[in-house]
């Protein structure tokens, strides 16, 4: 090969579940930007459904096309072990992002540090409402990154601020209407509620509507962002959002995949030749997160960002 450059037709695929979700859009932009820099082709693939068998099928169909590498968001860790290993055996390098399959042979994992997010959120809440107040969380049981954001925040509070009282914990599963309902009830039961932590933006939209309606003074913090929550941040209804650096996730995702596919440029001091694994192993990359407040909200308008860019 001619240094770090793609052969004509060399293709990299990004495979996700619920592929219509806006979260992937900036990630894929980062992926594409990196790919263009190296003259590589990219494809966005996956399944529109929340269905692991369908995602595996789409992943296997990606494999049929013999791409150089796949940046994969595995819906579940273990079910992907065997497909990932099979892909690598057939010459397609795999890197995971935002969710991992640690027991597989994927070469890298790019993600936000959910623990760091949770810790940051906890500190911010305490800074705003003091260290002896009531707070509540909405959650989405079953989705690992959302779970982690919630459980980590709760245990951080327990450990460092024992006077912070968790008074409500409702599953709203990214459904704004469910969140509207649940928040309404939490507010009824806890007139002294001071803060609300929400691990994703869909529920935040419903929660803020309920808080506004009840005219309660509750500090709302959430992860991710949507145009609506952005507006609420600008208007001061939502205090702050923590948004994973999606562009970096995609960009680094591509880099890791590309490097794995072009590992021939790298001859490290270790046993990779005899053991037969890819020499470009990057166990973990933190893509970081951005803190969105009233002041910087304007930079996070996805619609503005996407203007003039091709989504696919």
């Amino acid at each position, binding site marked *: 090969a001619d240094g770090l450059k793609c052969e004509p037709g060399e293709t990299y695929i990004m495979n996700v579940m619920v592929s219509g979700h*806006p979260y992937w859009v900036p990630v894929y932009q980062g992926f594409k930007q990196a790919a263009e820099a190296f003259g590589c082709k990219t494809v966005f693939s996956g399944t529109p459904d929340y269905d692991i068998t369908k995602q595996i099928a789409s992943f296997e169909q990606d494999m049929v096309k013999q791409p150089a590498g796949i940046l994969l968001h595995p819906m579940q860790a273990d079910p992907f072990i065997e497909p990932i290993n099979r892909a690598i055996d057939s010459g397609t390098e795999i890197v995971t992002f935002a969710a991992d399959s640690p027991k597989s042979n994927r070469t890298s994992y790019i993600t936000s540090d959910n623990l760091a997010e949770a810790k940051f959120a906890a500190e911010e809440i305490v800074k705003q409402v003091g260290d002896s107040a009531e707070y509540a969380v909405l959650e989405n*049981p079953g989705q690992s990154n959302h779970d982690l954001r919630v459980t980590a925040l709760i245990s951080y509070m327990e450990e460092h601020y024992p006077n912070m009282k968790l008074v409500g914990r409702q599953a709203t599963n990214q459904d*704004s*209407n469910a969140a509207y*309902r649940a928040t309404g009830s939490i507010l009824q039961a806890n007139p002294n509620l001071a803060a609300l932590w929400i691990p994703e933006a869909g529920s935040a*939209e419903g929660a803020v509507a309920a808080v506004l309606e009840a005219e309660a003074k509750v500090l709302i913090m959430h992860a991710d962002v949507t*145009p*609506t929550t952005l507006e609420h941040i600008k208007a001061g209804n939502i205090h702050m959002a923590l948004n994973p650096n999606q562009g970096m996730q995609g960009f680094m995702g591509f880099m890791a995949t590309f490097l794995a596919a072009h590992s021939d440029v790298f001859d490290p001091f270790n046993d990779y030749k005899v053991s037969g694994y890819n020499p470009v192993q990057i166990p973990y990359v933190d893509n970081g997160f951005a803190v969105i407040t009233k002041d910087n909200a304007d930079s996070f308008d996805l619609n503005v960002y996407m203007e003039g860019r091709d989504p696919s």
Partner: protein
Amino acid sequence: MEDAVSLTGAPENKSPEVSFIHRLLRMRETGLIAIILVLFIVMSFASPYFLTWVNMRAMVMAFAVEGIVVVGMTILLISGGIDLSVGSVTALAMVIAGWLFLNGVDPWVASAISIAACTGIGAFMGFFVTRVGLHHFIVSLAIMVIARGACLLGTGGRPLGLFTLPPEFKFIGQGSIGPIPVVIIIFLAVVIGFDFMLRRTTLFRKVFYTGSNEKAAAYSGIRTKRVIFFTTTLCSALCGVAGIIYMARFGSAQPTFGIGMELNVIAAAVIGGASLKGGSGTIFGAILGAVLLSVVSSSLALLDVSVYWQDIIRGSILLTAVSIDHYLVKKRA
């Protein structure tokens, strides 16, 4: 196995001796009302916040908009149909109106266009059901997928922020007239209006006839296909209305809104006595069904029951309540 026979959809026996109380007891809905009352009493002991005005208001707000869809679904069920696309179509209503608004159309005009579009979707389904002869289930399933796709396409998968909606428009979703939220007023108007029409107007009686025995209705000269076309269209149109109100409430249009709504809505109607085979059901009962589901959810949240137990308890209460209701209905028969 047989579905409960709804008596209230039909005129009551009005012989003079039959007192009001007696009639109340004979009503299909009495059992449900009793069950809901029991839940209320239990809850008012369990939580001091339950019986507050604010909580009641919040509880009604939580199901009011969906309640409008329940009305449409009940009427459709009575005519013998079913609609799985309600969630997607409601979301699409938000997306269409939101998109138009962001592209400079006046929000009221945008809403009207959006409701018209949903009505069109209903008509499209009605066409496939009545002219092509497919089953409601499969047609509305396809439309459910297509409408969701259209939501994605119209938004690029990203929720549309509609923060700039004028306040007089947001008023329909967020405002109050006196102490009563506008949403609840709209909801009550829809419910009372359609309940009345369904019981009393010749037009809606045909819906019962068609659902009860399509052939018999056709033999009596009723254009049953038109009736089914009408109920199918009406249900989608009401989804459109609900979508607009949601948009005004949340100030956004979410392409993923309403996933799974269809089961909730159908469940409410069925709990309230509607038969999936058509021919019976009442708006009043269906709304009671929605109230029951909502009270249970709210109560669990209010009592801060562990998330991991909530579903189990919710399902069990549902099963118990429906069994008791069924027992009461059967006993009275």
